[in-house]
């Protein structure tokens, strides 16, 4: 299986702090891949490097066999990478449906003249976009809530709406930043199933940041563990569970020895 995303030697510094250090990651196509690590390990910074929010000082990121280094976030989105955010960032004063329609922006063509003169092509495009948006809304089981303002939706719905918005741009790679944060066990269970569905039904590669180990171990095919910006372990869930350095990073020095003993 080929790799859809390859990060080589990626380094991102903020002043004297190295948030991500010489990181190498290879993400196979149509896999579910997790990045875990304690708070401040540089997981979200790495996400921001992939999506063009930050530009790494060193290294290279190759997506779909082409480098995406130096591209702006809208160009990267158009290449086929979409994401959600750790603290939900919906367009809160737009309706749920409009949020999804914005997600389709790059796939639509009309500019000024089409809508002003009501051209047939524009109207068809809009009708199709609306249909697709409604389909996505139903896909994340929010049917009937499309006309509510995003800010008025309950928390769990907002999380799913954010995923629907990310899906609207028809990405090949979806980055989910803590999708189950703040959810109860039932909701977490649902979300886990949903993520697996995304991969199985839509064939989207999933890159995941997650703190809930049950989720991570349950659905990931491969895991990379970061600590202080550096990769300390990589492998299948099984490899990671027994890895001493990982346990140490999470629980502190000495704990690993106690647990394994």
């Amino acid at each position, binding site marked *: 299986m080929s790799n859809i995303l390859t990060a080589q030697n990626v380094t991102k510094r903020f002043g004297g702090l190295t948030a991500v250090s010489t990181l190498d990651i290879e993400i196979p196509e149509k896999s579910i891949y997790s990045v875990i690590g304690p708070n401040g390990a540089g997981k979200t910074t790495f996400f921001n490097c992939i*999506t*063009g*929010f930050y530009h790494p000082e060193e290294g290279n990121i190759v997506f779909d066999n082409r480098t995406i280094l130096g591209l*702006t*976030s*809208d160009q*990267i*989105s*158009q290449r086929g990478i*979409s*994401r959600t*955010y750790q603290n939900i*960032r919906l*367009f*809160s*004063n*737009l*309706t*749920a*449906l*409009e949020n999804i*329609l*914005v*997600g389709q*922006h*790059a796939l*639509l*063509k*009309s*500019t*000024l003249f*089409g*809508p*002003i003169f*009501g051209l047939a092509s*524009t109207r068809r495009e*809009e009708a199709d*976009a*609306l249909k697709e948006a*409604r389909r996505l*809304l139903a896909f994340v089981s929010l049917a*009937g809530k*499309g*006309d509510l*303002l995003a800010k008025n939706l309950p928390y769990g719905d907002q999380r799913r709406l954010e995923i629907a*918005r990310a899906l609207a*741009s028809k990405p090949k790679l979806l980055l989910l930043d803590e999708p189950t944060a703040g959810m109860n066990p039932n909701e977490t269970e649902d979300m886990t199933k949903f993520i697996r569905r995304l991969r199985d039904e839509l064939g989207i590669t999933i890159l995941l940041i997650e703190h809930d180990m049950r989720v991570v171990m349950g659905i990931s095919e491969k895991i990379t563990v970061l600590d202080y910006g550096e990769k300390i372990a990589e492998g299948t869930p099984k490899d990671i569970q027994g890895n001493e350095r990982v346990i140490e990073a999470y629980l502190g020095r000495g704990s690993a020895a106690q647990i394994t003993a």
Partner: protein
Amino acid sequence: MEHESKTPWWLKALQTGLIGGVVAVLSCLIGMIESFHERDIIAGQITMGETVLLLIVITFSYFSSRGTEDTALPKRLTSGALTGLVTGGLVAGLVLLGKWVNLREILVNASPNLYKILTFEMENTTTALAYLLIAGTVIGLLTALLHLIPTVWRRAVIYGLTIVSLIALLQDLIRITLTRFPQITEALAWMFGSRGQEGLSVNGAIAVFLIVTALNYASATRGDSIRSRVRALPTGTQQGLRWGSWLLLFAFLLIWPRIAGPYLSEVTNGIGLFILMGLGLNIVVGYAGLLDLGYVAFFALGAYTMAVLTTTGGEITANFEWTFWQALPAAIFMAVLAGVVLGIPVLKIRGDYLAIITLGFGEIIRIMFLSDFLKPYFGGSFGIVLIASPTFGNLRFNTPQTLYYVILAGCLLALFVAYRLRDSRMGRAWKAIREDEDVAQAMGINLTSTKLLAFAMGAAFGGLGGAIFASKLSTVYPHSFVFLVSINVLALIIVGGMGSLPGVIVGALLLVGLPEFLREFSEFRNLIFGALLIAMMLSKPEGFLPEAVHRRELHEADNAANTAGT
């Protein structure tokens, strides 16, 4: 107040009363009451000055007696009465103070005439003071009682009173306009009293109040059933009704200058130009959230382009002598160009910084037109004269009543474009940028082109407005394009409701139209205005007609069901 505060309720009522009293005393001491006293609201009965004082007491007692849903009646009544008493007391204190000390040496407006108004022209001061206190208390009590009336009735009564005072204030205008129709002279005399009198007559006031209140009550109680009955009609009939009402409105707009006469048409034209600018700035600020404080620059550029290209005389060297219609596209183009030129350097700048830069840009354009260096081209402070009027065949649009149609056409065009863009792909992209620029970009929106397009669209409307403005006055001076114009346009958008198209129209009517009629209060205009704006921002921060949530999901489903059914 959602959370329980520690201050006891009676202290709060006292505080509110004190504030009300200070407001009342201040409005006396700046001369507002005295100068308003010269005008009658109801002929021979109540003057404008008395109305203002009354309004102050009512407003403050209303808020102090508002409480929560379950506040007990005695508490409310005491609160209202207490507030009224304190407010009246402070005014009484002013009268008393004026008896002992000659306030006039410092405060010029503390004139004998003012005391006469405040003491109801009574000789005996003690009785007058008692009257003041009692009046305050009684008004406070009555206001508190307002809370007892069901909301529908309360709203209807408030509407009725507001309309009565509005009609009374605008009576001059209404009379002048309506005297052009001799058929209704008698009705007018009945309503407004005999000539020379001001304000409504007593029976006129009662009639207006009863009609408005009843209408409002009916629309509040029966409105729903009528609406549902309309909704029960077949789709075709409904659409016919909607088209019919639009046509009716359009026909009214077409004949408006004939009804209104030259003066009102002139005022309407002023409002129309501000609507045009408001619609343009609404795209930049309301849709895309880019705070532009130099919007007048585009207006100025449109006006000056029109002026330079069409002028047929004066001091400047240009002699293109184009017609209005030839110069119009050029004026819009220049404004758009300026929009893009301004847009490029400020692409990465957000919020407050953007506001400052655009503000500077607006000033630069004005000073450029004012400069001696460019005097041969723009005429410096003398401006440019003899600008062409629009012509159409043999028709020349050079009077307010004819120019109205050019402005109406411009407004309708701008309204149409803004309406069509609102729910288009571009409109959504603008709103997404307004909500969260970074996320919008990560959603695949190209910030550069999207922002530039917003600036360009806004500038185009401004340029169009400016071009019409120039040929309306047939002269342009740099002085017409001061910073205050930008602020006015921004204020009308905010008052109307950010991003809302009907809001722009309502905002322009309120902020540009109303002051036009209240010109005689010019001294206090800005004060009243400021107070109204603050009150509005406190009570309705989203504006009068906020942008409605656009229902598409279920609405579309309804339509689909309808078409399937037929």
